[in-house]
């Protein structure tokens, strides 16, 4: 029943698809291929492999895991750096006074502008891409973590003082958990940013990956390929976000519960 209702809410999606199909077939513009053509091309590019490999093609197996691997490597690295620095800044007013302008500046730099720089520093490859991703997405994590660590309930801190918690116990059992909702907000934002930076870093300096496939399709005027790659990237973004939301809901169940009652 709930499933049917959920389906009912999606009624516009097939309508849009059909309208799109009809319009593109009528227009016959090579720049706007019909969805069926795009789907066929996507099937050919990624999903026409042998059954024992889940129908994935060589190209899919080469490019998708590579891209996703870089994305996660960058995201995790940025997560560690951002949380560590952020908590330090959040807990030390003095440190944050010195570092704050640098953070504001760093976050204002449009990350793609650094691509040529990282390209020169690391040359084409995973290193350069991960560096770009980390630099681009560390800021929301850092700012959110420092915000979360700064605004720990005073009573919680006093409780840990009174019961004599050591510095590390206070950090791991009080400050970090209480900053966790904020940290997760930062991580979620940076996950979608990571996808963007993954794509652009692959467009500029890579010999494999989904972004490279996109560039390849564009160079060979393979418009269904370009559209198809964009769809794949959209699906990837959707999946990443959904998986993250599920994880967040599990980890932060206490937060939702606590906020419902107060």
């Amino acid at each position, binding site marked *: 029943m709930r499933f049917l209702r959920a389906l009912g809410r999606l009624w516009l999606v097939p309508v849009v698809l059909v309208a799109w199909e009809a319009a593109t077939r009528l227009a016959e513009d090579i720049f706007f291929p019909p969805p069926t053509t795009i789907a066929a091309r996507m099937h050919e590019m990624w999903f026409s492999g042998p059954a024992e490999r889940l129908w994935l093609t060589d190209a899919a197996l080469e490019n998708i895991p590579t891209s996703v691997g870089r994305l996660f490597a960058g995201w995790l690295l940025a997560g560690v750096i951002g949380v560590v620095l952020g908590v330090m800044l959040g807990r030390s007013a003095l440190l944050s006074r010195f570092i704050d302008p640098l953070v504001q500046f760093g976050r204002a730099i449009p990350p793609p502008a650094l691509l040529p720089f990282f390209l020169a520093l690391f040359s084409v490859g995973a290193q350069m891409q991960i560096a770009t991703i980390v630099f681009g997405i560390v800021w929301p994590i850092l700012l959110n973590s420092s915000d979360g660590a700064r605004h720990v*309930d005073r*009573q*919680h801190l*006093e*409780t840990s*003082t*009174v*019961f*004599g*918690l*050591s510095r590390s*116990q206070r950090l791991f*059992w*009080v400050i970090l*958990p*209480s900053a*966790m909702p904020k940290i997760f907000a930062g991580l979620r934002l940076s996950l979608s940013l990571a996808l963007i930076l993954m794509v652009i870093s692959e467009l500029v300096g890579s010999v494999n990956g989904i972004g490279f496939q996109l560039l390849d399709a564009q160079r060979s005027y393979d418009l269904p390929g370009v559209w198809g790659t964009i769809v794949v990237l959209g699906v990837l973004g959707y999946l990443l976000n959904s998986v993250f939301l599920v994880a967040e809901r599990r980890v932060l169940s*206490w*937060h939702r*519960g*606590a906020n*419902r*009652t*107060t």
Partner: protein
Amino acid sequence: MLEISNLTHVYGGGPGAHHALGGIDLKVAQGELVCIVGPSGCGKSTLLRSIAGLLRPTGGTVTLGGKPVERTPDDLAVVFQDYSRSLFPWMSVGDNVALPLRRKGMDRPRRREAATEALEQVGLAGAAGKYPWQLSGGMQQRVSIARALAYRPALMLMDEPFGSVDAQTREDLEDLTLRVRSHHDMTILLITHDIDESVYVGDRVVVLSKAPATVAGDLRVDLPGPRDQITTRENPAFVHLRAEVGRLVRGMRNDPAVSS
């Protein structure tokens, strides 16, 4: 054991400054249970926070076991007035109670055992696996009492610990406090609004004047035999003491001259 002399505290500065404590002198012996009563907003929590080392008073000294209190002393536990914010919502009730035991070097099973025992004492045996926000206000308050009990401090500070529990539970917790004190030789400082309660549980009742708070009265409670909710409360000595404390507190409210 605890010695407070000429303790003053002023919040803020300039024209908006608030004189919360106006020179408090108080001595508490080892194993004593002292109740502190006083009008709302007079500075009871402020006094408790300076004893706990959470607040640096602007004047006077607090010494605990001969040593001046500068940082939060070891072997001290607090049951905070704002119980809901003093429990950690990201931990289960059992973990909340067990957390402070980590620094006592207890291993995991022993921590768990101590937590279960303390929760049983406050009548929450089954709640260890729940989260604080799944409990009622009174239950949360009992959890924070259990946490302090499990910690086995030498000095326990309780800030209106029975404020939001029902009458029956309140009586049980009062008796629990008395038992704990005699079993573990704890020194307890208990802040309350309830005059009956202060006389029933206290060895002494200290009445504070309204802000800036000073000690307006210090009565020794001499009641015969072990205390009992029914018989003690009908004892003439109890009735008499209650009236005396009541007069002191009331005097605070009606006649400002008393406090000065």
